[in-house]
């Protein structure tokens, strides 16, 4: 185990904003991802799925990762969980520092694979988009939740089932004791996702990774699950990494947001800065492309679009990866060198050498 030195960790207070959401910028981190690079071996050679990804996750904080297909948001979460397919995917460089329950720091990249199961499901839990594929159809939901408690806590069967019933009640499943004996197919999509959340939270993880947890749900059910996330976070110090393509959901759950494009973080900042005052041309374009209820564009003939397509991992432009689609791109500047992730005075960061000159320009 490595001790992780960081001077910024000295200030312990948690501040809350007007909405009562904790602005945990002042509390010491639980997870620090530094210069993460993930590679996959494919039949077309080695491809870099994610590179140069860095971020910090603090107690009671939700960090959202947004981006479109192939941007690397799910790969990032799988790398943290040590779930990259062995033999094809691997962390090529960088570190994933986790503050353990003991207070010591572990680099999950260097940790022997045999130790990962102690962390997964116990200190870091994960939930996925489609709960049906993550739940075992042959076991009751009670047994599946109890298994996690049994594995990580060494509880007996009766005690583990008791804990399972308690968790089902906590995630808002009516008649939890009766539901222990239900099989996944007997539950609706919303109920299955609640079961997944109950299972994930059963060992009180310090970190929850939620990969598109509401994407497959109807909006009225999504609203219930978002409310559940909020109340669970209010009642614990759990940190959440929330991956979604839905900027509306991000606005409701996240404190800080990472915007990813073509395997890199292109912008990072508070949820208000990212959604209200985006600086990167991609973030600006993405936000402008979303049809939204509060800004109907009826009468306008067209939606705003980002021209072109997301480049495939093997065909990314060598310097700025967004350059071919960017309205502000300048030959000689944007294709000169890969743009660094520049720190901003407000604590955010941006990967664009021209952001100062385009900040005042209208959308995208």
């Amino acid at each position, binding site marked *: 185990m490595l001790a992780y030195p960081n001077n910024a960790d000295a200030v312990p207070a948690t501040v809350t904003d007007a909405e009562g959401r904790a602005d945990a910028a002042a509390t010491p981190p639980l997870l620090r991802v530094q210069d993460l690079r993930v590679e996959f071996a494919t039949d077309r050679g080695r491809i870099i799925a994610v590179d140069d990804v860095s971020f910090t996750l603090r107690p009671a904080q939700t960090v959202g990762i947004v981006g*479109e297909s192939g941007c690397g948001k799910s790969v990032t979460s799988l790398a943290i969980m040590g779930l990259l397919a062995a033999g094809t995917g691997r962390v090529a460089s960088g570190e994933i520092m986790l503050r353990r329950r003991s207070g010591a720091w572990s680099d999950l990249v260097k940790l022997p694979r045999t130790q990962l199961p102690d962390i997964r499901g116990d200190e870091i839990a994960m939930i996925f988009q489609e709960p049906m594929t993550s739940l075992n159809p042959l076991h009751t939901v009670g047994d599946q939740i109890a298994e996690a408690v049994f594995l990580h806590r060494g509880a007996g069967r009766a005690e583990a089932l008791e804990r399972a019933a308690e968790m089902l009640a906590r995630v808002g499943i009516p008649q939890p004791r009766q539901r222990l004996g239900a099989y996944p197919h007997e539950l609706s999509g919303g*109920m299955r996702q609640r079961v997944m959340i109950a299972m994930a939270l059963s060992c009180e993880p310090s970190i929850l990774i939620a990969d598109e947890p509401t994407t497959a749900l109807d909006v009225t059910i999504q609203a219930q699950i978002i409310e559940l996330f909020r109340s669970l976070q209010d009642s614990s110090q759990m940190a959440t990494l929330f991956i979604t*393509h839905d900027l509306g959901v991000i*606005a409701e759950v996240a404190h800080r947001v990472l915007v990813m494009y073509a395997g890199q973080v292109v912008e990072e900042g508070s949820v208000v800065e990212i959604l209200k005052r985006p600086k990167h041309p991609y973030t600006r374009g993405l936000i402008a*492309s979303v049809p939204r*209820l509060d800004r109907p564009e009826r009468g306008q003939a067209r*939606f705003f679009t980002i021209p072109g397509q997301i480049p495939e991992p093997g065909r990314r432009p060598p310097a700025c990866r967004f350059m071919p689609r960017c309205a502000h791109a300048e030959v000689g500047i944007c294709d000169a060198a890969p743009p660094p992730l520049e720190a901003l005075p407000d604590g955010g960061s941006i990967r664009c050498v021209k952001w100062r000159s385009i900040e005042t320009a209208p959308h995208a």
Partner: protein
Amino acid sequence: MAAAYAASNGVRSKRPRMLDQATAPAAQDVILAIENLRKSFPVTAAGGVGKAALLKAVEDVSFTMRRGEVVGLVGESGSGKSTIGKLVLRLLDASGGRVVFDGVDLNTLSRGELRRMRRRMQMIFQDPFSSLNPYFRIRDILAEALVVHDIGSGREDRYARVERLLELVGLPVSFATRYPHELSGGQRQRVGIARALAVEPALVVADEAVSALDVSNQAQILNVLMDLRAAFGLSMLFISHNMAVVQNIADSVVVLYLGRVMEIAPTEALFAAPHHPYTIALLSSIPIPDPELKRRRIALTGEIPSPIDPPSGCVFRTRCPVALPACAEQVPALRAVGEGRFSACIRDEAAASILA
């Protein structure tokens, strides 16, 4: 504007005619009339034992679409919106009611007649990958649609038409010789649209046509659809669960819940002031990408009930924040509540003020 439609021939309509003649569009303006449409599917209990039951996917749905109009058909899982889309094209046979396309009741058509009629009605599917034959080049996928409907003379002419179609949907002509797997999701959906347009249809049913796409592709495809509509006066039944998309593309909206129509309204009126408690709750549940926006959310408790055993009376009453005991007694009639607006609720006047 979609209007709740009481069949002009009162004999067929089970419901009393509750609409003014003035609100019903003139027959020649109507491209599509759905009249008291029903569809149920028999379902058997697990393992084939036990009693068979009926899943009521669509119950007594009526609305009309004018020529050149885009009608948004919205609702959550189990609302029956996709089933209605299939019934409109007669990809499914209705259990009751009628689909009248351009004055012709589709149920009265023979197979041959239906096939000829299909040239005028086309569908765009959600997943453009599973609906494009992976062994065909793009030009042959598109040319096949022309061959099936006997459009064009010979291969040269059809390939020339294919090139024009590709241009129409914003794809480079060089894509003609590619295979579907060489295209991105957005590009494949453009091919799906081109195929639907190949036969110059009068009506397009778009079933979640942009739902599988990333945001930037979604906006591009919506623009293609809007351009085509402007250019050809396409009538479109736009089926979607995404209310924000519907708000931007539809002229009027039909809101469904558990197989029944809850509300019909011109788009702007619906979003400015939803009438039915379900519409109010649905709109308030949609997250908006503005963390500083303060809104009142009407949280719906519970789950969407099973269409095999729907609630008595109003199907929404089990989750409705303003339901009364009376709501369980009879199915509320769809009644006029404003210009071109209809709502199926006995509480909607109270609802608007209570929930506002």
